[in-house]
């Protein structure tokens, strides 16, 4: 694994690789189950959870449906509160703005609060190219950054690493970029966290520029909100002289009161707590307290593309709680890297194609990275109907690639099937052949399905793509038609 998602293989390839990693699977299964159970407990505490979800979904949906108005209001309130507002059409523009503001202050480093938006635009790499070091200050992001690794989960990005690996990464890398880890570092979580505290405090105390994202942006008051646990967010938002926040345009809510359902839904859905340890809100500049120069970069980067999609628009309601990851049977087994994006799991499987389109093989594979079991919709605090969007995006993938591909084995098979189904004699012949195949496959099958039916393992040839990820039940030895003819629809009593 190298520190970039660019050029990642399509989901099936990446997933097959991940499935072979038993350590990864064990870490992930443990983590997702622990968080899932914690969530279920605190959600059960709230009597009107369903009403709260409806309110949360409503607040976000209303903001999206009138987004231009709210963005203009937000800009005006931010400016009134002393902030400078920038707009960025894409990743490149956003990164250039951050680099420019940083350079204007003559510094070559920034401290960062964990932020999906800045990961999405590849800000760290872009700043590095400009000679600016961007230090991640969230413990998990620090582990990922020092390990030259990629995040694998929205909420706990280093969940794929165990304590021994983390100790090794700290010992090997901390000294290269600042205060080294103590030589007697053990793999106790508290000891590792203390090493991170000492390493990062040095950076917090000297940092002059910080970069953050925002969980919410309130239009009528110009307030940004950051929700976190460790206090690294507060460090970045409070101590430096200059603060630059990169905010996706979909983060807007209309009014201060709209935060209510969201601040109740997010922590319970995310970390399974009644409230996260720290929430910071600020509106522009407060004289004498905190950064005296505040910049906000409003980022599109595909969001208007997603907004135009009638079915997919709802994905922009996402508050990045990661609950859908923790309940997803696919995510649980393959982990976040296989999705090839900073947005993994069910939400990633719809958000990436919505933001970027499906022209690229990797993105086009994502809507298929799901069993459509519906668990993600059940837990989503803002009621995003992920399964429906997945199905709709599958259709988009098929439409887009209709012309540009050699027909797949599946398509050839479907054509053959429609030829056979359209004529009863042909169908009978085909069924006889399949009965024969059933007897052959049944004999050579390597697997038995629950219920005792034989199944074929991996088939050779074009069918390998299908059987590579599932067992193919052996066809019955006698077709329904033959059975009907032989027994007169069962009246002959004849089981065979």
């Amino acid at each position: 694994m190298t520190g970039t998602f660019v050029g990642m293989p399509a989901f099936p390839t990446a997933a097959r690789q991940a499935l072979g990693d038993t350590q990864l699977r064990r870490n992930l299964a443990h983590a997702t189950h622990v968080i899932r159970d914690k969530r279920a407990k605190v959600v059960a505490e709230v009597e009107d959870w369903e009403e709260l979800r409806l309110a949360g979904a409503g607040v976000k949906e209303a903001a999206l449906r009138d987004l231009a108005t709210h963005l203009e209001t937000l800009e005006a309130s931010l400016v009134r509160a002393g902030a400078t507002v920038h707009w960025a059409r894409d990743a490149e523009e956003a990164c250039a703005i951050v680099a420019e503001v940083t350079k204007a202050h003559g510094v070559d480093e920034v401290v960062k609060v964990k932020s999906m938006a800045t990961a999405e635009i590849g800000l760290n790499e872009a700043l590095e190219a400009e000679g600016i070091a961007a230090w991640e200050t969230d413990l998990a992001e620090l582990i990922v950054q020092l390990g030259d690794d990629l995040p694998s989960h929205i909420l706990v990005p280093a969940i794929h690493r165990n304590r021994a690996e983390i100790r090794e990464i700290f010992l090997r890398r901390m000294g290269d970029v600042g205060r080294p880890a103590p030589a007697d570092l053990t793999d106790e979580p508290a000891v590792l966290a203390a090493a991170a505290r000492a390493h990062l405090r040095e950076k917090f105390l000297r940092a002059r520029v910080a970069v953050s994202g925002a969980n919410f942006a309130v239009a009528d008051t110009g307030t940004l909100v950051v929700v976190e646990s460790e206090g690294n967010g507060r460090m970045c938002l409070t101590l430096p002289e200059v603060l630059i926040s990169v905010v996706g345009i979909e983060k807007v809510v209309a009014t201060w009161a709209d935060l209510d359902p969201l601040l109740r839904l997010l922590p319970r859905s995310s970390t399974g707590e009644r409230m996260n340890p720290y929430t910071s809100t600020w509106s522009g500049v407060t004289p004498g307290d905190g950064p005296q120069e505040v910049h906000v970069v409003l980022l599109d980067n595909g969001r208007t593309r997603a907004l135009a999609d009638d079915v997919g628009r709802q994905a922009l309601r996402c508050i990045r709680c990661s609950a859908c990851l923790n309940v997803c049977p696919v995510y649980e087994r393959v982990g976040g890297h296989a999705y090839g994006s900073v947005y993994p799991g069910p939400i990633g499987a719809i958000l990436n194609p919505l933001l970027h389109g499906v022209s690229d093989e990797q993105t086009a594979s994502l809507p298929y990275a799901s069993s459509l079991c519906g668990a993600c919709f059940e837990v989503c605090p803002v009621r995003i109907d992920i399964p429906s969007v997945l199905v709709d995006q599958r259709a988009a993938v098929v439409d887009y690639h209709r012309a540009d591909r050699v027909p797949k084995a599946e398509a050839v098979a479907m054509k053959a099937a429609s030829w056979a189904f359209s004529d009863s004699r042909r169908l009978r012949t085909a069924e006889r052949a399949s009965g024969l195949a059933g007897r052959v496959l049944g004999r050579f099958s390597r697997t038995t399905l629950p219920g005792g039916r034989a199944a074929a393992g991996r088939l050779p040839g074009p069918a390998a793509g299908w059987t590579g990820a599932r067992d193919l039940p052996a066809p019955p030895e006698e077709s329904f038609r033959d059975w009907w003819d032989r027994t007169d629809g069962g009246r002959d009593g004849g089981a065979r």
Partner: protein
Amino acid sequence: MSARDDILRDVRQALAGVSPAVDVPPAPRAPDRGGLVALFLERVEDYRAVVTRCAADEVEQVVRHVLGPARAVVPPALGLDLPGAIVDDGFTATELDAYDAVVTRAAVGIAETGTVVLDHRPDQGRRAITLVPDLHVCVVDAGQVVADVPDAIALLDPARPLTWISGPSATSDIELDRVEGVHGPRTLHVVLVG
């Protein structure tokens, strides 16, 4: 065209023909559990914060006891007599790092979630002072405790910077083992008055 105009145009185009009218149901309220203060104390403690309840005339004594020999910084209008405590004078982060403790008041306490909210008026001080020292002693009046998040939002002024604090700083990033105090104060001590 500027990026601003482009983005706003794209937003409008994306939503052409989409009705902005959305039925937003009101957020439900938590049922009245009664015993607000007791619930607040229980929930704060649940976060592994330390809680002491005392009468109004005992506050100074309690806080002095909690601080012990710790070097403490205090906001300008704390209104408590704490010998040895230094009033914040716009210290730099590095200067604050030399202090062990900070004592502040709060703006609101939220029972349902066990949260204290600071709005950083002069009795609570700048944001930095409650962040850098390792022990935060927060004095909350029983009358400041509200039932739930919406009550707090209604009381708070968004024009001020706000810090919502629920327990000490914590991380679960290493194998989901919870560790307190990564960057913020490792100990939160809530003194509830009344």
